[in-house]
């Protein structure tokens, strides 16, 4: 049995904000009819969180549900729990047209922390309005981070969690480092 490692094995950086690859995070892509009661129940049972609305995420620590598209959810669970939760999802949705796939090792997850300045770090890289009131805790956004797709949410007012493809983990880490470089605060959003 090989030892699972995350893309950057917990790499971190300290600038005007702190960047950290959080290590192994269980992630399941669940596609299907999001209005279906069985699917909502199964997603809630897998994560202990309620079904989020459009472009929202209900996440606590490493468990939760993020709304990816009208027919797709990102299910976050502890890395070691993925196989068991996948099996439970498959059983609960056996009669529904759906797809549930373990994508944990296909992605990388970063945490950006250090206060309201995290809004500026994201705003430098993504075409998203990061002003207070336009984006906040509970919101979830899929977008572009410089040249690659990424998604993020704010667990609280002082931090952001970012998901990207594993193959571009180093690129995204470098982007975040650049945007969080000492002396680079803009002072517009924070």
């Amino acid at each position, binding site marked *: 049995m090989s030892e699972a490692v995350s893309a950057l094995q917990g790499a971190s950086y300290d600038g005007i904000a702190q960047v950290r690859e959080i290590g192994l995070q269980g992630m399941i892509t669940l596609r299907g009819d999001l209005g279906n009661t069985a699917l909502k129940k199964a997603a809630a049972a897998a994560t202990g969180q309620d079904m989020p609305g*459009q*472009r929202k995420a209900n996440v606590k620590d490493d468990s939760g549900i993020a709304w*990816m*598209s*009208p027919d*797709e959810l990102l299910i976050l669970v502890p890395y070691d729990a993925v196989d068991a939760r996948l099996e439970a999802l498959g059983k609960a949705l056996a009669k529904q047209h759906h797809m549930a796939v373990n994508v944990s090792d296909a992605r990388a997850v970063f945490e950006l922390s250090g206060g309201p300045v995290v809004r500026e770090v994201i705003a430098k890289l993504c*075409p*998203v309005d990061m002003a207070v009131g336009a984006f906040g805790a509970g919101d979830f*956004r*899929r*977008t*572009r981070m410089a040249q690659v*797709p990424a998604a993020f949410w704010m667990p609280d007012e002082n931090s952001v969690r970012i998901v990207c493809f594993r193959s571009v983990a180093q690129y995204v880490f470098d982007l975040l480092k650049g945007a969080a470089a000492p002396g680079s605060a803009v002072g517009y959003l924070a």
Partner: protein
Amino acid sequence: MLILTCPYCGVTGEETEFHGGGEAHVKRFGPGSSDSEFRDYLFSKVNPKGVHFERWRHNNGCGKWFHAARDTMTLEVYGTYPAQTFEPPQEIKDAITAKRPGWSWREFS
């Protein structure tokens, strides 16, 4: 810079979050069609100055295809609407008429 609203996820984003997919409402001609129909399906696209209908994909987002009605000269977007339709909805046509009375595009006006 175009500002588009994705009808599926509701994001209003600038055009680099999306990808253009060419002319909208193109009727497919495949096996069994005449050579001229197939040629027109592949190559005969309009390139108007003014009102235009296009397909776009929210590629750096929810991933869905949708339609957009916009003006190629002013970059104004009259509206966006789902992909599952053969023609622009009436409210999109009305929005265009309000700004460009007498407009026409292909068989629509």
